[in-house]
């Protein structure tokens, strides 16, 4: 890379790393309820100094603090979690077709949420069971594929089988569900940020933060793990242990995100590819940039939903609508897919 190109890439990387913070503030000003930028600023100040915003409508504070802030933070956390999860798994399995749901997480989470809604009722948050069964699904995949987890095909096949198994269990639970519980379940499965609350963040944010931190610290090892196992071993890496840590971390963040907002497809596939097309396959850059681009894409998609439509459209539709054209544009421009 020439010096000019290098500095341009650095500038672009910096732009993408800063972008989610910029979008964070933009997203706080987007919504159905019109609040002027001055009103927003004063509302924010009134949180620190309550006396300063006494003339503001009471709804401003509720909208900013209880509705927009948790929604925006959740969008960022979910976008970052799914994208980093996809990037890490693609590197680990040395396969660009892998996505964050390949190990049965989505069907496990859906089954857990359904089970909770149907048999435990409203007293028990469905997100908890969703998370637990997402982890159970991945555990089953790893256990069944056993020592063969180093072989991608074996793991992939086991993932498909476990996904099918949990899908069948989901159908069975649906059979016993009352229509009213089914309505709630289908709404959850659509994937939406519309009901985001601080309670959701209390559950998901710490888990996502821990998983992201681990994957960030392991980012250089992902470069080694994306080589052949023999090469990785020769460089002194405990391949089996490192793989388990990566899989556990991706499971943690994907399950935490999925159990809160439902299944949002394509993000973990598109974002890592976008990042690699722009910045190359070095995971030291891919991991943090996937987090930043994923969070940004999710925020943009959610802002579009909140701005253009009078009703809530599942956010997964817009992440695809925004992400896929960019992906195709870059694919056509660069004519290569990095791994």
């Amino acid at each position: 890379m020439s010096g000019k190109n290098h500095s341009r890439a650095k500038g672009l990387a910096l732009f993408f790393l800063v972008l989610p913070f910029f979008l964070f503030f933009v997203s706080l000003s987007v919504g159905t309820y019109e609040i002027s930028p001055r009103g927003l600023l004063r509302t924010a100040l009134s949180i620190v100094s309550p006396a300063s915003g006494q003339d503001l409508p009471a709804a401003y504070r509720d909208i900013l603090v209880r509705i927009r802030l948790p929604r925006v933070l959740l969008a960022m956390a979910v976008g970052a979690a799914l994208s980093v999860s996809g990037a890490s798994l693609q590197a680990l399995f040395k396969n660009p077709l892998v996505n964050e749901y390949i190990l049965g997480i989505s069907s496990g989470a859906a089954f857990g949420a359904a089970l909770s809604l149907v048999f435990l009722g409203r007293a028990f948050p469905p997100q908890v069971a969703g998370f637990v069964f997402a982890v159970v699904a991945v555990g089953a995949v790893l256990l069944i594929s056993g020592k063969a987890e180093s072989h991608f095909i074996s793991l992939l096949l086991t993932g498909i089988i476990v996904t099918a198994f949990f899908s069948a269990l989901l159908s069975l639970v649906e059979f016993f569900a009352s229509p009213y519980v089914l309505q709630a379940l289908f709404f959850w499965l659509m994937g939406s940020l519309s009901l985001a609350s601080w309670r959701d963040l209390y559950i998901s944010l710490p888990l996502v933060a821990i998983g992201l931190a681990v994957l960030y610290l392991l980012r250089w090892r992902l470069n080694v793990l994306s080589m052949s196992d023999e090469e990785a071993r020769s460089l002194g890496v405990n391949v089996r242990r490192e793989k388990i840590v990566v899989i556990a971390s991706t499971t943690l963040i994907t399950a935490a995100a999925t159990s809160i907002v439902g299944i949002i497809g394509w993000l973990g596939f598109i974002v890592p590819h976008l990042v690699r097309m722009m910045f190359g396959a070095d995971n030291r850059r891919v991991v943090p940039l996937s987090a930043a681009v994923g969070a940004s894409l999710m925020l943009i998609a959610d802002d579009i939903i909140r701005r253009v439509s009078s009703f809530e459209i599942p956010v997964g539709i817009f992440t695809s609508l925004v992400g896929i054209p960019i992906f195709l544009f870059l694919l056509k421009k660069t004519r290569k897919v990095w791994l």
Partner: protein
Amino acid sequence: MNSRLRNRQLGHRARRWGTLIWVILGLIAVLGAGAFSLNQGRTIQDNLHRTVKVPPRVDRILSLQPEITRILVALGVKDRMVGVDYFIGREDHLFKILYPEGTGLPVVSKPDESMNKELILRLAPDIIFASPTDIQVPDSIERSLEIPVAALASMGTFDGLLEEMKLIGTLTGREDKARELESYFREKIRVIEESIGPLSVEDRPAVYLSFWSSLVRTPVFYEPVQAAGGRNVADRLLPSRSGTVGTIINIEQILKWDPEVILVQGSFLPVERQVTVGEIRNDKRLASVKAVKTDRVYYTLGFWYWWDPAGVLTETLYLAKLFHPEKFRGADIEKEGNAIYEVFYGRPGIFTKLMGILGFNEWKKP
């Protein structure tokens, strides 16, 4: 008699018979054609804008649409039902009261709304009624089984409900009963509206409806609110898809509307309610909403796989009393409800029984 004469006589006889046979065949053809044209029935436009050829009279009916099933019971033709859908067969508390034997009818659909087509074929219905919410179901059944399927629903309007009732009355030869129930329904609504009197927009409380097991799912049209002197805040929105009257909004939108009354769908057993009045009252995100501040959050019946004609009439009266208590001070909802249910279903005490099952304590509060 020589053989030539015999042959001639036989020839004459054969010609006479031949002529007679042709006349009979001709008559059969003419009568057959007449009968065929009589059996042509008529065409109707269903709620999915499909043109459906329906037979003039139907003796074997398969209703996959609970609202129509209830109308069939109200019109007194429940014995013509050859099967029921999953919801009516397993979940509808009213149907269990109205027609307990009916719960033993073959159930042709599953919770995921897929159909057992072999069973439908075996039941050989003359017509199938489906809900317009299941967009692919009518065409799929009609194509594969060649049985007319009409996708009908009230779509949240009284006229839609009464049109449905008239059509079913015509098809089942119960036009008089349908007319009688329609007149009763319209008269009841007229009395409610007259009691409320003329209202300006400001006199109508702004009402938000939380339906379908979610705080953010709401009907874009719900006539009982309008007829009861309220104003549905979501009235100007479009449904999120064809064949439904529902849409999904965000919580911020509720704050923007700032409704004076919030109604939660309560046609479920208390244990099945995914959204409760208590939750909404304690939801800090909604703390600034007028309805929450003034504690005007209530259950209402709402859709339960579309309507029950007696239920929606009682609900309208209940809402009128809720919105304008000063004008309905003497109205005893339970007594009125029982009277309405008796007109539709011919038995006393149904409403009280239904309330007991569904835990509708709200009806007694205003």
